[in-house]
């Protein structure tokens, strides 16, 4: 066993940088030599190509080639095993390197600080989302009510979406739980303007029909836009409680992402509750 002084806890530069990036949710990628010369050697890169990589695989040219590949893997969110020559040559297999990308966690924006919000935020946290709860009503959108959320924002949905919308992508989710046209119409309009992968909207089929009329008044009539809305929100699994509904919503998000066939409430008829 190696003898380590108490101060050794701060003396691991690559691990410390990886740890800090993971805690902050910053994109980072790590290369590890797993076979060949220099087993265990590390190279760590962030998303910014202007930042120098940390660590070394034991050869400057190998570092340059693997550093470039790491950034490409990070951009794609891939993890892979690759082979290189000792100086990074392609088509050689002297060194086997494990390239691991740590993309930032996906985001879930939940609009509406209602009963269902806390349960959905809890389940989303289990799945690894960075969760933001947003409601314009100060009395409802409080830290005390949503301690599990990463962020509680008192603001109008369309204003929050205007500020963070450009960062939303296919892995992210917007859940509109207000079922109040004053809040949910601007939230939907704002979400449709982003590249977010999932837009779920709570409310009965009847509520959604009236909502569609309000959306049409706002100029939202494109079938491609309306086709992005999962409303009523969630899979048709007979969910009743906030917790069961949260599972139905998160399962729908997974099924949409993976392209598997699972019955969404949107695609059925009749009452949505068991």
């Amino acid at each position: 066993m190696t003898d380590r002084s108490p101060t050794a806890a701060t003396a691991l530069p690559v691990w410390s940088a990886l740890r800090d990036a993971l805690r902050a949710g910053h994109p980072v990628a790590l290369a590890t030599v797993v076979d060949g010369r220099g087993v265990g050697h590390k190279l760590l890169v962030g998303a910014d190509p202007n930042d120098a990589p940390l660590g070394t695989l034991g050869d400057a040219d190998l570092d340059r080639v693997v550093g470039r590949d790491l950034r490409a893997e990070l951009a794609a969110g891939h993890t892979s095993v690759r082979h290189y020559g000792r100086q990074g040559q392609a088509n050689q297999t002297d060194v086997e390197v494990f390239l691991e990308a740590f993309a930032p966690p996906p985001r879930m924006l939940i609009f509406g600080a209602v009963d269902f919000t806390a349960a959905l935020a809890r389940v989303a946290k289990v799945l690894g989302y960075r969760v933001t709860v947003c409601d314009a009503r100060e009395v409802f959108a409080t830290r005390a009510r949503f301690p599990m959320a990463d962020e509680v924002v008192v603001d109008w949905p369309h204003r929050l979406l205007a500020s963070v919308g450009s960062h939303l992508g296919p892995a992210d989710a917007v859940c509109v739980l207000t079922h109040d046209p004053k809040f949910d119409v601007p939230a939907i309009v704002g979400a449709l303007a982003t590249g977010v992968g999932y837009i779920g909207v709570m409310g009965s089929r009847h509520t959604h029909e009236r909502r569609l009329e309000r959306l049409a008044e706002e100029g939202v009539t494109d079938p491609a836009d309306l086709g992005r809305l999962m409303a009523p929100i969630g899979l048709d699994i007979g969910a009743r409680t906030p917790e069961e509904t949260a599972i139905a919503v998160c399962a729908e998000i997974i099924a949409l992402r993976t392209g598997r066939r699972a019955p969404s409430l949107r695609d059925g008829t009749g009452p949505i509750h068991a």
Partner: protein
Amino acid sequence: MREIVEDIERWRAAGHDVALARVVDLAGSGPRDPGAAMAVNDAGEVAGSVSGGCVEGAVVTEALDVLRTGSARMVTFGYSDDEAFAVGLTCGGTVHLFIEPLDW
């Protein structure tokens, strides 16, 4: 990895040595993708997982040996009908793990 960072930091703060096992490659069916990580400290405590529970016991043994010798290694677990008592994945896949001391 993200889910085991705080356990690792707690162990390090308490003066423990830590070994890290990561799924590097997978052939056939397996429950955890490349990147799945598990940490083992020198007291035998475990955080995270690298399979559905099939190989974790053997990984702890290997990880403690990695801490004792200080040398990183690749370890492969697969299922074989010939070795009724060998460690493997019941789902029939083969998993390649890299196990190393957290000394970087």
